[in-house]
């Protein structure tokens, strides 16, 4: 079970982990948790709704950017249940209705689902359609009761729906298509059964509709024009007042509706701030009477005092995050404010009507490696002395989730691990004589307690908690979770780079986090605004000085989303997690090629190719350039342009001819290109062999007792192309107009070694390349099933070598060098099989010497996990 439920990202880790084990067929059921581990993550939280009724377990329901909806235990942060929606099923809003259903709106507002709160069972699902695309808004009217039913108001695709929360029936619907309306908000004033729909029409017209929530009847429609136009969002301040910005972002508009009249009040932002520094942004919040503006890095809190008068409450240039309002008692609201100050965060809970009357003020020490607070969610509870206590849930820059209560971090979840973008491994430290890394029992009492527990366990007296304690003790003392290298190299550190730009080191024995490091470059805003982590490479793996030198990894990042944004390199020690150095590059990073050469300090040479196809050598040392010059003519690479259907091969030409002398920069020349006809073929997948793969045997005995020599080349590229029509979803094309072509291309010469067409097949293609074979998975439309094919490539020029006499007499050419320049005589063998499941990922095991037989590891869509021998 544990295996089957391992999530996508962790599949990936497990793949790596078990790639180092000899083939154990499987686990016995009673070994689960002892030999393996599995962890579940949810991703960066977008929205959280608390459910803290007096009875039952306290929980919080969250929706995340990874399209996960989950219910978490508020005491410990464990997952009660979790559902991963499809990748295009983005969650727009969540809420809780009638105290037992979680309502989610997803897929651009077209799917409304209700989940049972205790067990996560889906209760109903409705499909909501509308005439045009628009913003989607979800509103649960908790105070409007129709036969114990809460009405869910959904605005989606230009249509307003009222849905019953018991069975998902649409009670009424109303179109807003006629008036080219851009709806901004759906508002329900507390204690009434009216719903207001507010929006802009034709960008300068403000529109407001009053609708009876019981039957969808349009009661009132008001509109007013404002010549300046509007920018972005409106924020509701009170039931009669809204604030918006004009199209330049420099004038604040207070829109108030009074007795059916809409009036605008204009306030230039420069009046409020003093000197206007740039366009302002209204931060969405729901606190009555107060809203906040962000002008550059300054946050301004403003109160609206009737009739459009504004009062500045506070100006701060600290990094600030504000929660939504929480109603604590009759008409009273409170909200939480978190500000960063050095290594601490200050949490203040303020009532909405009194800025200075803090309900709570706490300082909490925060790990710098978590970055800034991105989101705050507030909840209250009643203490034993009947006063209010507050707890807040905060989402950090590294996507972790923390619960703060009474000035302490109650629990934290490292949900950044839900979005892993690259993984590499690192050896653990060598065990040194005299110094034991494993901690000895703290004191005698601890030791005695442990033994008492174990005794209880053997005498069958232990309670379930005791059993869990014994289990964890056993795990701690067991061999597999030690922090030192083992003889066979099975224990390793997994270095993981997440989408949030954080590095984690996980121990393969039990999956615990050894250290984590938020890439420091993120905190130099002038150097790099939006750092995106790209890849991880092993930078330095010391063998000669393994006792006193630590290995390090290279983290390659990019400043900003565009491909030609400048790159950032960071070097991180894998034992301590400290950043050794970082480099902001002047050039972009399109491709990183780890070269098979190391310098005298065992730093691996890396070639960075930028967007203009210049090659840059790292490390920038004279020694490195010396090594590089020797191998200058042996370096080749290729680039794949999916959009144009071109694969190009390159070699180095000369030093860069730029005005700034840079001896580590090289020009490239194009050697070859393979152009696929765009009307019939589109590249959908490319795979190469792993660079560090070791092959043990060159020959393979095939079924008829014959021996064949594997064609082992590091320069082979597998490319799959499909008919442009068939590159979409399954079922969109007929078998006649779809085909899939698989190529094997030599990346030095550009020669196509093999080409095979699968008629009536289409993607998505998942492929893995190892030794002399490639396995790929695709969809066969004729049989309407998935298929897997294997292509094996053999060297025909050495076929005569299998004569024993020639071997004995020394007349063989086994020792003759193989060159990629020469035209190889190869033959290929291929086989196809039906495969039942859809795939998410496919990988192959690898071992240090390449002796152990290979196993294919397949992650299927149902998060199951299969292995095959080859």
């Amino acid at each position, binding site marked *: 079970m544990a295996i089957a439920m391992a999530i996508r990202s962790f599949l990936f880790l497990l793949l790596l982990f078990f790639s180092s084990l000899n083939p154990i067929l499987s686990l*016995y059921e009673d070994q689960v948790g002892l030999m393996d581990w599995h962890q579940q993550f949810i991703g960066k939280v977008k929205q959280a709704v608390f459910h803290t009724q007096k009875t039952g377990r306290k929980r919080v329901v969250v929706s995340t950017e990874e399209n996960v909806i989950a219910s978490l235990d508020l005491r410990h942060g464990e997952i009660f249940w979790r559902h991963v929606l499809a990748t295009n099923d983005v969650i727009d809003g969540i809420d809780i209705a009638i105290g037992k259903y979680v309502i989610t709106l997803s897929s651009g507002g077209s799917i409304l689902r209700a989940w049972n709160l205790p*067990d*996560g069972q889906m209760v109903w699902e409705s499909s909501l359609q509308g005439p045009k695309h628009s913003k989607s808004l979800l509103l649960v009217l908790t105070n409007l009761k129709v036969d114990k039913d809460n009405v869910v108001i959904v605005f989606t695709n230009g249509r307003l729906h009222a849905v019953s929360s018991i069975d998902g029936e649409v009670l009424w619907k109303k179109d807003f298509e006629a008036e080219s309306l851009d709806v901004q908000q759906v508002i329900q004033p507390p204690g009434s059964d009216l719903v207001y729909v507010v929006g802009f029409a034709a960008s300068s017209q403000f529109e407001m509709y009053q609708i009876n929530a019981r039957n969808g009847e349009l009661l009132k429609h008001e509109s007013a024009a404002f010549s300046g136009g509007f920018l972005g969002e409106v924020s509701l301040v009170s039931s009669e007042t809204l604030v918006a910005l004009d199209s330049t972002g420099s004038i604040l508009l207070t829109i108030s509706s009074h007795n059916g009249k809409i009036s605008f009040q204009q306030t230039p932002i420069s009046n409020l701030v003093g000197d206007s520094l740039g366009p302002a942004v209204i931060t969405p919040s729901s606190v009555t009477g107060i809203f906040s503006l962000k002008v550059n890095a300054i946050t301004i809190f403003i109160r609206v005092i009737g009739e459009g008068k504004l009062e500045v409450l506070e100006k701060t240039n600290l990094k600030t995050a504000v929660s939504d309002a929480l109603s604590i008692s009759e008409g009273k609201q409170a909200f939480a404010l978190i500000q960063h100050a050095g290594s601490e965060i200050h949490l203040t809970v303020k009532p909405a009507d009194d800025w200075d009357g803090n309900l709570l003020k706490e300082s909490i020490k925060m790990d710098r490696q978590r970055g800034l607070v991105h989101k705050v969610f507030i909840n209250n509870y009643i203490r034993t002395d009947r006063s209010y206590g507050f707890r807040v849930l905060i989402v950090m820059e590294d996507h972790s989730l923390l619960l703060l209560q009474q000035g302490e971090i109650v629990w934290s979840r490292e949900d950044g691990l839900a979005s892993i973008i690259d993984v590499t491994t690192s050896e653990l430290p060598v065990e040194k004589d005299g110094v034991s890394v494993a901690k000895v029992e703290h004191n005698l009492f601890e030791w005695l307690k442990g033994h008492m527990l174990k005794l209880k366990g053997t005498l069958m007296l232990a309670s379930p908690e005791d059993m869990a304690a014994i289990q964890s003790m056993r795990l701690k003392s067991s061999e597999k979770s030690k922090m030192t290298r083992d003889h066979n190299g099975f224990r390793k550190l997994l270095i993981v780079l997440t989408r949030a730009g954080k590095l984690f080191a996980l121990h393969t024995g039990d999956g615990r986090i050894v250290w984590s490091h938020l890439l420091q470059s993120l905190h130099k805003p002038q150097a790099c605004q939006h750092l995106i982590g790209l890849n991880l490479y092993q930078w330095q793996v010391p063998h000669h000085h393994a006792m006193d030198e630590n290995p390090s990894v290279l983290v390659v990042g990019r400043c900003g989303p565009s491909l030609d944004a400048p790159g950032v390199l960071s070097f991180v020690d894998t034992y301590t997690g400290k950043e050794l150095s970082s480099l902001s590059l002047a050039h972009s990073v399109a491709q990183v090629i780890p070269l098979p050469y190391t310098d005298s300090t065992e730093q691996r040479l890396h070639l960075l190719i930028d967007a203009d196809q210049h090659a840059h050598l790292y490390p920038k040392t004279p020694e490195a350039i010396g090594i590089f010059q020797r191998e200058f003519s042996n370096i080749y690479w290729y680039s794949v342009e999916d959009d144009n259907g071109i694969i190009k091969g390159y070699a180095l030409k000369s030093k860069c001819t730029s005005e700034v002398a840079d001896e580590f920069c090289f020009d490239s020349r194009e050697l070859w290109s393979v152009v696929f006809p765009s009307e019939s073929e589109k590249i959908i997948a490319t795979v190469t062999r792993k660079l560090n793969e070791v092959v043990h045997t060159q020959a393979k005995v095939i079924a008829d007792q014959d021996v064949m020599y594997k064609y082992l080349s590091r320069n082979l590229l597998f490319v799959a192309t499909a008919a442009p029509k068939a590159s979409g*979803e*399954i079922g969109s094309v007929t078998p006649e107009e779809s085909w899939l072509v698989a190529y094997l291309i030599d990346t030095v010469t550009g020669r196509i070694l093999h080409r095979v067409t699968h008629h009536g097949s289409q993607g998505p293609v998942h492929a893995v390349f190892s030794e002399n074979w490639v396995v790929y998975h695709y969809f066969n439309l004729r049989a*309407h099933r998935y298929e897997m094919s294997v292509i094996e490539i053999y060297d025909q020029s050495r076929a005569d070598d299998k004569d024993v006499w020639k071997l004995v007499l020394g007349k063989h050419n086994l020792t003759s060098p193989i060159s990629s320049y020469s035209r190889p005589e190869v033959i290929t063998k291929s086989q196809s099989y039906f495969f039942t499941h*859809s795939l998410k990922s496919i990988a192959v095991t690898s071992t240090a010497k390449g002796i152990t037989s290979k196993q294919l*590891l397949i992650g*299927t869509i149902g998060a199951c996990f299969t292995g095959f021998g080859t």
Partner: protein
Amino acid sequence: MASIPRFEPVTLLLFVLLSTALTISSGSGDGFTINGRVRIPQGLGTKGFALPGKISNVKVILNGGQNVTFLRPDGYFSFHNVPAGTHLIEVAAIGYFFSPVRVDVSARNPGKVQAALTENRRGLSELVLEPLREEQYYEIREPFSIMSVVKSPMGLMVGFMLVVVFLMPKLVENMDPEEMRRAQEEMRNQGVPSLASLLPGGGRS
């Protein structure tokens, strides 16, 4: 873990056809709606995987992840806004193996049901999906059996000892005394200690 699901012999279940409504109905908007049902028969799932009430974790997947939906408490599911064409529906449920189902959504006659299991090409007249078999994820511990003891190295050694102690003297007894004497003499001449002389029966004779 590198668990190789060990499939039990296929126990095909009879498909109980229910007289329920249409499988495919024309929905509002541009697409169609596929309605179906997943049934997990009672007898299955007693091995601890499918705890009762765990149908909340069953996912129904359209076209390899294009759409994912979940089951309602009664086992029904639906995909909305599906374009006309041939589609593939998979059911992901821990502990069970479901065959993927090919579903044809025809634009011309929207009420038509066209569904077939792709594993055994069995046509379905209703979109009622049942597991073909249970999946076994773990290695099964061999139960205690006398044969496993006998076949173990220790058992084999004991067996050999028994053969030597009880059967060898029998062999010697059945020998012709004269022949035995001759053999013994030969052995003595060669100076090799004979096996029979070591045995108590052999020494007597």
